[in-house]
């Protein structure tokens, strides 16, 4: 039982990463009918920007220019990084996707792959092949709760992720921008007739998704400090799986599917040798999709909704 709860904590942490990234995938897919295959690399860019911001703030603090406690540095890092990565996401939309809005969807999809490669190799060109280390912003403390070991980092990661998801839910549900996003997901072509500038909403969708991926990048850096330019690839694919599993454009679906992925991976690894983890985990997902091809909350959609 203790063993189970120990793994549950780990699954929640991994699920947080997957879910945060899957949300951006799912929103772009739902609202713009676009698979943004560069999204995993936006996660990577977010982790690196976070690394830069955190390193800078730590340096300023140690020089005495800023008297900040490390937890505040973490909060600032998350906010600044989310903002900067949002700009990167908006730029990707503007430069790579907007000119292709009327193009065949396959062209837009390979554009995503190319943007991903550009971001990865751009990072290599900029920072070189060495791996960078995310600065330690929280001293690790381990709590023993009835034999289950929980670190303060894991708690922080799960709590911050859930708060961001809640904020996203409220944003989409209660603001006029969120309302416009939901309308676009339902019937894209008619939204301009409401006086809503769809380019603004498209950019905003990318900004929000990229911001969440950036948060995932920082949280990942806090837990696993070594970053490399290709870290986004596997995360991107897995989050993509979660987004589809959750159902087109469903926020709740992407969140649940992200966590489910975390759970399946961790618990498969608990029972089977870890080399078989992904083989078995994704066979299970494949089986789920066979029986629910539209995902958890996806609805069959008509051709009219296509761009």
């Amino acid at each position, binding site marked *: 039982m203790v063993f189970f709860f120990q793994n549950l904590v780990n699954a929640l942490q991994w699920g947080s990463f997957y879910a945060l990234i899957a949300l951006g995938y799912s929103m772009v897919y739902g609202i713009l009918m676009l698979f943004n295959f560069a999204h995993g690399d936006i996660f990577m860019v977010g982790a690196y920007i976070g690394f830069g911001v955190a390193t800078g703030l730590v340096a300023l603090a140690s020089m005495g220019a800023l008297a900040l406690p490390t937890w505040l540095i973490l909060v600032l890092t998350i906010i600044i990084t989310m903002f900067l990565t949002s700009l990167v996401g908006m730029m990707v939309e503007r430069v790579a996707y907007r000119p292709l809005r009327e193009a065949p969807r396959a062209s837009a999809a390979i554009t995503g792959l190319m943007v991903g490669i550009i971001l990865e190799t751009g990072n290599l060109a900029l920072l070189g092949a060495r791996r960078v280390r995310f600065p330690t912003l929280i001293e690790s403390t381990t709590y023993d709760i009835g034999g289950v070991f929980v670190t303060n980092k894991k708690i922080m990661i799960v709590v911050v992720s859930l708060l961001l998801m809640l904020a996203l839910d409220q944003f989409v549900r209660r603001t*006029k921008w969120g*309302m*416009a996003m*939901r*309308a676009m*997901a*339902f*019937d894209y*072509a*008619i939204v*301009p*007739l*409401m*006086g*809503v*500038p*769809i380019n603004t909403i498209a950019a905003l969708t990318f900004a929000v998704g990229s911001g969440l991926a950036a948060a995932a990048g920082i949280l990942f850096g806090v837990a696993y400090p070594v970053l490399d330019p290709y870290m986004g690839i596997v995360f991107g694919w897995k989050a993509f799986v979660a987004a589809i599993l959750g159902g087109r454009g469903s926020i709740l679906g992407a969140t649940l599917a992200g966590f489910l992925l975390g759970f399946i991976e961790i618990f498969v690894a608990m029972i089977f040798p870890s080399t078989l983890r992904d083989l078995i985990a994704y066979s299970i997902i494949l089986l789920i999709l066979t029986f629910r091809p539209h995902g958890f909350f996806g609805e069959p959609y008509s051709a009219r909704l296509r761009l």
Partner: protein
Amino acid sequence: MSLSVENLRVSYDKIKALHGISFRVDEGESVCIIGANGAGKSTTLRAISRLVPVEAGTKMTYMGSDLLKYPADKVVSKLGISHVPEGRRIFGNLTVMENLMLSTFARKNGKKIKVDLERVFSIFPRLEERKAQKAGTLSGGEQQMLAIGRAFMSGRRMMLLDEPSMGLAPLLMMSVFEALKELNQEGTTILLVEQNARMALQFAQRGYVLENGNLVLEGESEELLDNPAVKKAYLG
């Protein structure tokens, strides 16, 4: 003159949909364009709303502004031309209230929005009863009311209506047209396209007849109702 369209040409791929039509709508007027299925009626409205690209040589102005300089959302938010599209196209995943409020996206003045909302609810009390309901659960008639109410909420000076009678039972159709008449009398300019020629001509002051992408007839509604060619082709 509020809306002036000159030499409007639209093609889909290689097929010409409109062969250079010209017409005008004066401020406060109600005008209809009648014609058979596929004559180009919807395309005309979609061109005015800037949803489809027009060909070179087309000139469209509204209140003196060059329409071609405005993207689709600005035609609504800056010029005040709102469009009730064919098939209503309400957002079924949003509530009735959200559908109405979405078209105020670009509007600033909260007081005027409130006044407009009250007006919509006074014309269509059914919408107020169902304001918290998902719009997808409304009946066809209620969806048409919502589509009109939504266009009204955008702060319109002019409304383009694409087949508002489509799929409505006669009684419901009458009440929709009565509501449109009220809006027109309150100062909203109306351009209506309809297959239901009798209904449209009874409603509008003037009419145009569109055939295969060309305007072939125009006149006061009474004249057109008495015109033998119109009678034969459209009033059956």
